[in-house]
């Protein structure tokens, strides 16, 4: 089969699976759903492997497969083309690989749902995979936006999956609105690029790019940044992600941790020729990423819902990726993307195991003592936690250190990358602390007296296997690129992505050993023994008791939700309210109401003629004949 067809199959299979499950939701037997749902994703993974082999063999020469022309209107030519290069293959593998594991896991996690909901869930999941693959494979910006909106839609559907829960519906709506803000940015950015360069395909745009920066380019880059920020839940459009945890846990793992929220990183990477030129927007990417990383990590410290801790850590980790691509270390950003997909999916699925065993209890304070009772899950979760905290030798260590190291060593007279590094460094320490807090609170120590299930059962095989696979990946995945710790170590990810991004334009300095060691040491210390001392052994009184103000600030998430409410929602409501009073009722409503009232009034008058009395009709008839006669007489003279 030619490569062009295989690329299309990657997209078409999950789409077909989704359509089949959606159309036959109530009729498809559960056994078939269990095969079709994950099966299509795994076949797509195999097809992605074929593309991987091809890219491996031909040295990274990109393919641009054009299937047909979608829109043709003057200068606007929108083909349906898929762009296969090292980056999109990398993303395809992550999406289908991690996605396949999570969809397989869902087989077990969603077992308590009714047959209809069960099929619906996999329909949405496959829809998401399709959209995400379209997003990463699209060869032009219009198709990218289709995928971009598609993941937003499936995210909305999946957050609101338990649509009988009010909070889930509200969360879904919030996510959708936030995402649409980003979509508008994307679309406007596409307009700007098209207006400037008369093309919407990557190739056309990149070929037409000027040599130097221009205000137009900055505008486009900032607009795309809006899209990226919304999709990746970065400041200031981040508030939807914690609420998105209302969705089923595998959804949180797949969409709100491993794949969809990294779409912003992918976007910046995909448009890296634009961002390389637009230095202001590029710097904004890094700044937003770094600030979000620190911001989210600080909030994660006080969260008690295990999924919310993970949600904030996701924001924080994506902040690292933004930081990396923002300073120009694209390969480092994508390495961290992959690593994060591994360990965050692992953490979410591990948390899912626990939640499943705890009858949907998500409050960590009511766990405790799981180490002895759910040993397998606990070990895997520990692997994920250590990876998140950046402890050697787990994958998070290697990827995070590459990000920080590249930022640290970038030569820049302004010192901006080093400032970013400093924020990232502080975040790493905080990460160690809140990860430790989560671990010690939920798994270690004695069982909480409020625990809903005293003797939790270990997860079944179909859920355990993906968790174990992800744990293995999180353990060994880092060895793909070990140059963070060892110079000159091999760097397979960076080499793989070099045909797309080009080599890193600066050399790491020897000084980098110091920050790496410092990060590792401090993050490790924060994880153990500091967090341990605070939350398990309780040697020290919990810091929040001494700093109630800070505790409150963090618990309220810096009052950003309230601020948005005050800045946008309230004025909107007020405007809508006054519009209702001033415009809607007297003008817009009045017109149709007036017409209706007039019609009703005149009909009332006319209906007097329809009094149902036969003799009146005859009288009127005869009277009319009389009038006719008179007219006749008058006319005839």
């Amino acid at each position, binding site marked *: 089969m030619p490569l062009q067809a295989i690329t299309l199959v990657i997209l078409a299979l999950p789409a077909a699976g989704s359509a089949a499950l959606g159309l036959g939701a109530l009729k498809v037997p559960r056994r078939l759903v269990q095969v079709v749902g994950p099966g299509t994703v795994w076949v797509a993974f195999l097809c992605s492997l074929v593309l991987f082999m091809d890219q491996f063999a031909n040295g990274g020469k990109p393919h641009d497969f054009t299937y047909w022309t979608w829109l043709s209107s003057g200068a606007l030519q929108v083909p349906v083309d898929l762009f296969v290069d090292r980056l999109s293959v990398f993303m395809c593998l992550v999406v289908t690989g991690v996605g396949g594991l999570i969809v397989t896991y869902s087989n077990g996690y969603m077992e308590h749902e009714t047959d209809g909901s069960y099929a619906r869930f996999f329909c949405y999941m496959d829809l998401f995979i399709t959209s995400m693959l379209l997003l990463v494979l699209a060869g032009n910006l219009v198709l990218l936006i289709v995928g971009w909106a598609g993941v937003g839609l499936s995210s909305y559907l999946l957050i609101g999956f338990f649509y009988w829960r009010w909070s889930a519906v509200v969360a879904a709506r919030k996510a959708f609105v936030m995402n649409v803000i980003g979509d508008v940015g994307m679309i406007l950015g596409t307009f700007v690029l098209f207006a400037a360069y008369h093309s919407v395909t990557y190739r056309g745009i990149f070929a037409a790019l000027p040599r130097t920066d221009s205000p137009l380019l900055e505008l486009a880059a900032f607009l795309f940044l809006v899209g990226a920020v919304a999709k990746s839940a970065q400041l200031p459009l981040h508030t939807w992600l914690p609420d998105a945890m209302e969705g089923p846990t595998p959804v949180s793992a797949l969409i709100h941790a491993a794949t969809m929220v990294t779409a912003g990183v992918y976007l910046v990477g995909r448009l890296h020729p634009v961002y390389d030129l637009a230095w202001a927007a590029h710097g904004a990417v890094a700044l937003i990423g770094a600030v979000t990383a620190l911001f989210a990590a600080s909030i994660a410290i006080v969260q008690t819902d295990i999924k919310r801790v993970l949600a904030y850590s996701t924001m924080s980790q994506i902040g690292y990726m933004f930081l990396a691509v923002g300073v120009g270390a694209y390969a480092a950003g994508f390495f961290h993307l992959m690593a994060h997909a591994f360990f965050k999916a692992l953490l979410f699925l591990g948390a899912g195991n626990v939640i499943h065993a705890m009858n949907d209890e998500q409050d960590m304070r009511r766990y405790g003592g799981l180490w002895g009772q759910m040993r397998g899950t606990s070990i895997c979760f520990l692997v994920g936690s250590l990876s998140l905290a950046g402890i050697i030798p787990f994958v998070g260590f290697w990827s995070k250190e590459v990000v920080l190291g590249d930022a640290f060593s970038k030569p820049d007279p302004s010192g901006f990358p080093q400032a970013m590094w400093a924020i990232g460094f502080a975040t790493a320490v905080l990460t160690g602390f809140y990860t430790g807090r989560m671990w010690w609170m939920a798994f270690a120590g004695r069982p909480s007296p409020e625990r809903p299930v005293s003797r939790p059962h270990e997860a079944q095989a179909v859920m355990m296997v993906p968790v174990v696979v992800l744990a293995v990946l999180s353990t060994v995945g880092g060895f793909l690129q070990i140059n963070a710790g060892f110079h000159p170590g091999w760097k397979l990810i960076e080499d793989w992505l070099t045909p797309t991004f080009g080599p890193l334009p600066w050399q790491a300095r020897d000084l980098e050993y110091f920050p790496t060691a410092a990060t590792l040491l401090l993050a490790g210390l924060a994880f153990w023994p500091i967090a341990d001392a605070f939350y398990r052994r309780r040697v020290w009184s919990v810091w929040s008791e001494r700093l109630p103000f800070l505790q409150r600030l963090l618990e309220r998430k810096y009052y950003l939700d309230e601020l948005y409410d005050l800045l946008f929602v309230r004025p909107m409501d007020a405007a809508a309210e006054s519009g209702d009073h001033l415009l809607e009722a007297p003008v817009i409503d009045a017109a149709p109401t007036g017409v209706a009232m007039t019609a009703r009034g005149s009909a009332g008058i006319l209906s007097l003629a329809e009094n149902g*009395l036969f*003799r*009146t009709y005859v*009288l009127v008839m*005869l*009277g009319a*004949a*009389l009038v006719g*006669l*008179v007219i006749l*007489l008058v006319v005839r003279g």
Partner: protein
Amino acid sequence: MLAVAVFWIMAVLAVLGGLGVIVSRQPIRSILSLVVVMLALSVLFLLLSAQFVFAVQVIVYAGAVMVLFLFVVALLGPGRERRGGRLRFQWWLGSLVGLVFGGFIYSMLQGARFRPPQHTDLSTFGTVQEIGLGIFTRFLYPFELTSVLLLVAAVGAIYLSRGGRVGEGRGAAADDGRVRGEEEPHA
């Protein structure tokens, strides 16, 4: 002058009959008055060389159709019209309108000029042969249409008067029930 005498006698008879139709309070008297009008008119038809129409008027109209009316009266009973009721003003208003209407028609007749007649052989005018020729040549389609109309009216009348479905307990369904009562031993 015999013809003139016949016309006036019949005309007076017809007008009296017409008055009888609208004045009497009992349907049966109205019907009989109408028969008088019809018979008087039939004589006038004869005067006007319409032998076939005369025959039809007497046999079909005065005979069959009026008998149908009599049957209905026999079926519904001799309901006398009560005084009062709604639309009391209609009595004088209707009379006024009707009289004005009639006055207008009459005034139109005054000074009306007639078109010159065709020159037809009056010895065969209005005979059955001529009528038959007219009906089955020039008036074939209208004739067939009227036959269809009669069929529709007959079917409609049967449908309307066959009574309600069994067991619905409508007022006159009891009549019907008696016919069908053979199936019901306790009827």
